[in-house]
Structure formats: C-alpha cells, structure tokens
C-alpha cells in the first residue's frame, strides 16, 4: 500500500469533517438538554425557549458547517 496524493486528500477531508463535528455534536446535545429541561419546568415559556434554542443551535452548528465547507474545499481540490 502506498500513500498517494488523492488518497491523502480523501483522508484529510474525512478527518476534517469527522473531527470537526465532534464539538458541535456535544454542544447541540448540551444545548437541547438545557432547553428541554427548561421547557419541562416551565411549559408556558416553551415558545420563546424554542426560538432561543434554535438560535443557539444555529450558532453551534455553524462550527460544524465550517468543518463541512473545509472538507468540501479539500475534497474538491480547491485548497
């Protein structure tokens, strides 16, 4: 087995997206956990809580999306 340029590129793209989604995954888990707890304690506030939860998810998820974009850039030989 030999390491070719194309193979290393695949490996780099897979590592970028694989490692890059660990953090956002944990983050979204923590965030939704807290939001669901709050909704369970105070169901009347769930409308506002849901909106805030989605904003938080959007911010957290953006990091994962950055990883995805970099994986795409590496995979399509743009960088």
């Amino acid at each position, binding site marked *: 087995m030999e390491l070719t340029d194309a193979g290393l590129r695949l490996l780099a793209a897979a590592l970028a997206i694989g490692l890059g989604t660990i953090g956002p995954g944990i983050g979204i888990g923590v965030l939704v956990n807290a939001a669901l707890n709050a909704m369970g304690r105070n169901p009347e506030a769930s409308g*506002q809580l849901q*909106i805030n939860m*989605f*904003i938080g998810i*959007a*911010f957290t*998820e*953006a990091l994962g*999306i*950055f990883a*995805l*974009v970099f994986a*795409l850039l590496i995979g*399509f*030989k*743009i960088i």
Partner: protein
Amino acid sequence: MKRWLSIILFAAVLLVPGFVLPRFDVKAVTASVAVKPEVLFELELGSFNFPISNTLFTSWIVMLMLVLFAFAATRKMSLVPGGWQNVLEVIIEAIYKLCENTAGAVRAKKFFPVVATIFLFVLVSNWLGLIPGFGPIGIIPVDAKHPAPEGIATFPLSRDLQEFFGPKHADHHEYVLAPFVRSPSTDLNMTIGLALIAMVLTQIFGMQALGVVKYWFARFIMIGKFVEFFKTLGKGKPKFGLFVFGLLDLFVGILEFISEVSKILSFTFRLFGNIFAGEVVLLVMAFLFFAAPFIFYAFELFVGFIQAFVFALLTLIFMTIATTAHGAEEHH
C-alpha cells in the same frame, strides 16, 4: 375532481423521465457534485459579458413565484380573507409578530420588510431545490472558452437527441451533465450577497438609530475609559486602573469589529453548507437504496425551513442589538 386531475397530471409529469427518456439513447453519466454554479449562457452588454448561471436563473424563478403569489393574494382583497389572501395573511402576521416580540413595536415596522423578504426568498429557494428535476436534468455545452470542470466526463449529443432537438442543435459539441435549474442557496455568491445585505443594513440601521459617531464610539472604538484616565491625570491624581480597563476596552472594540465581519462569513457558510450538504446527502442516499432518500427528503424539508427561519431571525436579532444603546455610560 379538479384536485384529482392535477394530482394525476403531476404524477404523469414525474413519470416522463422514467418512460420517455430511455427511448432516446441518453448516456448514463456518472453523477457529479459541483460547488461552482454552471454558466448557462452569457448576456452581452457591450464589451462586458455577463454570465447567467443556473443558480441565478433559478433565483429569478423564485422572485417570479413570490411576485405572482403576492399578486394573486392581493388582487381581490376582502375584509374576510379567503384563499391565497388567507395564506399570505397567516405568513405575514406570524413574521410580524416575531418582529414585534423581538424588536418592539416601533422598530418592528422598520425591520419587518428586510426580515420577511429574506425569510420568504430563502425558504422558497431552499424548497425549490428539492423538487424532483432540480439537479439531475440538464446538459451544458463545453468549448475552449468554457472548459469542463476537472474530473467531469464530457460526452457528445447522441444521434436521437440531435434529431429530437432539430438541425439547429445537430452540432458536434461536447456536453457535460449540469442542471438547468439549481437551488440558489447552493451557490456561495447568492448566500454571501444575502449576508452582505443583512449585515450592511444592520450597520446602517444602527447608525441611524444612535447617530454615526455615537454608534462607532460605543461599539468599536471604545475610548471612554482613556478619556477619563487623562482627566484624572490632568487633576494630578491618575487612576491607573482606568488605564488598564481602557486598554481592555480597546481590545474588546477590535474583537467586536472582527465579530461583525465573521458574522457575514457565518451567515454565508451556514446557509450554503446546510442546503448544499442536504442535496449531496440526497444524491448519495439515492445510490445506496432507492427508498432511502424519502427519510432524508423529509429531513431536508425541515432543514430548509429552519435555515430560512434562522437566517431571518438572526438578522432581526443583530439589527435589534445594533439599534439598542449600550447603556454603559448611564450606569456610572
């Protein structure tokens, strides 16, 4: 009865690619994923050639759909809404309520047009890309001026298709498989355009609300503590704590400026990444198992809505923050 007829018609249209296309000698070309939108044709404006890409073309379709919808809904307005007017009123009221809850009644009037436009445009373009036929159908000729992307197979038009299109297209061009219509959200140019509109308007609204000088000095160039330090220095009793906090404030101002710029990037890549990745996932799933895309199709409908909602809501929140005075000066 009318509804059944339209359902049957729609199903027939969907079946056309399956039954009619195999009669022609259409080459099966390996599916490809392209980040860059394909140029359909070029508009010649004097010496400058304006390329019309498939995503730009689709964004015109989106605009046309929104305009036609608005026209149909407001053509015969009545006090008791019915039909299209009812649908539009529900949507508009929901967005307006959101604006009022977040920004307050006065600012909601100002922010609502921007936020609602962004929401509707992004939502329609996200969902339009999910319609079957967006993506797989289309061929684009390649020549020396517009070479095929690297690693994408080119093929000549088959004889059957040449006869079908008539003598005008009976050329010996090479073609690539590229969609005629493609969701505008899968084009970085569109998403960065929207992000720039949102953030530039945010800055303008902030400067309008607080005044240009106050806005810049309250957010980005925070030298209030320095001024106080030099006042105490002039009195002969310098407070060096103020100097340290002044340095910190300067640094925070620079960070604030960087974060404003990074908001544009994050807007851009969030929308593009989500929708583009969604389409790639649908493509990959279609090659795994024929029924697998159904689940992801439903998920992509959800993601399309959430991304449109998040884009509009974040714009609204950034605008609200920018137009709110910091209040640090009043707390002394």
